[in-house]
């Protein structure tokens, strides 16, 4: 671990001042430190200054019929929040499955959304991959069983955030503070594909931070389903979140988002269209799940993930309608 200066910001203003004019990678914000310390210890990042933002707003409160979550809220506090549990089961289910109890006790909601990809080439000092400024993605002709089944590259990571998936399904926004003030960004517009942004995964600039996650009122039915190889600490092979606005037994509109299948949380509009206007049966859920993975373009060793993603979507839909 390379030595670094440490700034413990107690206000947004202090945090932004410490991050100001940050050259990418030289100054980095840290909340729970679950991801950043691992990155630094593996020499994937070598910051000169780390700015702690763990003491910024951690409150979780109802707002305008929805929910506002301070980005510094611990994942465990979200899991145990009664209102969130009642209204946003897709988010709570996903939060319960993050990491381990230790990670949920210290890791923050904002940190989960901003964590860097787990790609084993990106995380390995031995591989100077595209994302680190190298000339190739080693996964293409290498070991890609846990890589993306959607997207055209040139980098084939899967996005690591379990919480971003339901946040997008609920139509949430990220409140971002930076030198120019505060702005809200649709979560669905926040993440960027590698052909738009190779060295980062979102539109967030190095001198900006997420301060809040803002969710509108949920649909009447919502759920998440995650498929993991191990039951204990492991990353999902695929996950799905479903948010359904209902008119009686009929789906008025649906939002379906898949996780761990693409470089960003991956919306499935074709599957959403299958559900719209229908009362969901198992056959409809299967049809929607098939539509969700219809455009998949697997790599040499990960076609099996199509079946797993299909299953995650089907089960999330059925979990949502069955409540």
């Amino acid at each position: 671990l390379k030595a670094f200066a440490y700034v413990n910001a107690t206000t947004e203003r202090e945090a932004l001042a410490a991050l100001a004019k940050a050259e990418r990678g030289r100054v980095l914000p840290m909340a729970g430190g679950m991801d950043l310390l691992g990155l630094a210890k593996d020499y994937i990042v070598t910051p000169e200054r780390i700015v702690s933002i763990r003491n910024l707003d951690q409150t979780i409160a109802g707002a305008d019929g929805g929910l506002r979550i301070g980005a510094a809220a611990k994942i465990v506090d979200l899991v145990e929040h009664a209102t969130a549990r009642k209204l946003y089961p897709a988010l709570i289910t996903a939060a319960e499955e993050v990491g381990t109890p230790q990670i949920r006790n210290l890791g923050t909601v904002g940190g989960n959304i901003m964590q860097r990809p787990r790609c084993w080439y990106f995380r390995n000092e031995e591989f100077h991959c595209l994302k680190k400024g190298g000339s190739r993605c080693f996964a293409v002709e290498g070991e890609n069983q846990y890589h993306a089944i959607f997207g055209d590259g040139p980098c084939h990571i899967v996005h690591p955030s379990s919480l971003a998936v339901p946040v997008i399904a609920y139509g949430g926004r990220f409140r971002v503070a930076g030198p120019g003030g505060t702005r809200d960004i649709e979560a669905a517009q926040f993440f960027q594909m590698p052909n738009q942004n190779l060295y980062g995964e979102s539109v967030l600039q190095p001198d900006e931070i997420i301060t809040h996650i803002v969710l509108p009122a949920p649909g009447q039915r919502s759920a998440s389903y995650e498929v993991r190889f191990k039951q204990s600490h492991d990353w999902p092979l695929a996950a799905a979140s479903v948010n359904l606005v209902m008119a009686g037994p009929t789906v008025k509109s649906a939002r379906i988002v898949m996780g761990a299948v693409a470089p960003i949380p991956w919306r499935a509009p074709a599957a959403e269209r299958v559900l719209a206007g229908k009362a969901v049966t198992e056959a409809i859920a299967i049809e929607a799940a098939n539509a969700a993975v219809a455009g998949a373009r697997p790599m040499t060793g990960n076609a099996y993930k199509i079946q797993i993603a299909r299953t995650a979507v089907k089960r999330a839909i059925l979990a949502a309608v069955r409540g």
Partner: protein
Amino acid sequence: MWAKYFPIGAERINWKSRHVTGDPAPGPIKRGLGCSANRWGGAGTGARAHCEIGSDGSVVMRCGTQDIGTANKTIMAIVVAETLGLEVSQVTIELGDSNHPFAPGSGGSTTAAAVMPAMRVTAGKARDALFERIAPQLGVAAAQIEIGVGSVVVRGAGSSSSAVAQGAKAEDPAKTLSWKDACKMLGTVPVSVDGQWERGLSAGGTSGVQFADVEVDIETGITRVKKIVCVQDCGLIVDLKTAETQCYGGIISGVNYAVFEERILDRNTANMVNPNMEWYHMAGQSDIPEIDVVLVDQPERGVIGIGEPPAVATAAAIANAIRNATGVTLRHIPITPDKLLAEIERAGGTN
């Protein structure tokens, strides 16, 4: 011994409930049972040891063996304590130091069979040396002294040759000295003896059977091992609790071997891409099945190692259970979701 062990395991896994290959139950979760058998060596030789008994009653046994987490040190103390009639807490075992008398390395499940005889022989020699030293002061022959419970017992205390000559009756009642009082008679010079492994106290050749109860989600290819039953022998069981623990450890490793553990090398650079506990999968608490261990004691055979034997059968039992659950046969471990889904697809899909 397999013929005796299979019925025991079958009873405990409820083998009668086993369905034909391919769980006919509706839904994606398929249940299956499987079994397999193991044999292993577990013999060992060559360990040496040094034992000192101090005038304060302390017992120190030194041996150049090691405890790699197997409870070797615990069972060494148990053998020494039993030989001297003491509590385990009264015995000090010193190991893990190559300045101590030679003992072989830990491998091939040979440690217990190599070290326990050295403990028994050396502690016995120390006992005999103690008796030789204190017998003259007690006015008896060393052969009249034996080990009691936390004590030494002097038989016919009044019947030493000089006492008999003085008209004492040979059936004089036994006299009991506490261990501490007996050792006090050593004065400033402790008992200090060397000993080593001898034939006849240990052996080789273990056998066992295992049964697995698994659930396979045929829509995701993910296997959950629900229960393992293990029927295993290892000769004389020195300590039941730690022998069972060795079985738990072997079986957990067997589950990892069957389902999780895989060193993945990048095919183009030969760098390992999963050199960490994140992607080198190993079972965590929630991935470890219920484990039911039946140990079969064979005191007449002497001590035999139990480190590896319980790990031998587990993966085969799990693979057979997966076949019983799904109807597909996997011939390569670990049985990961990609392999299982490919076989299920080849066999005609999830329906």
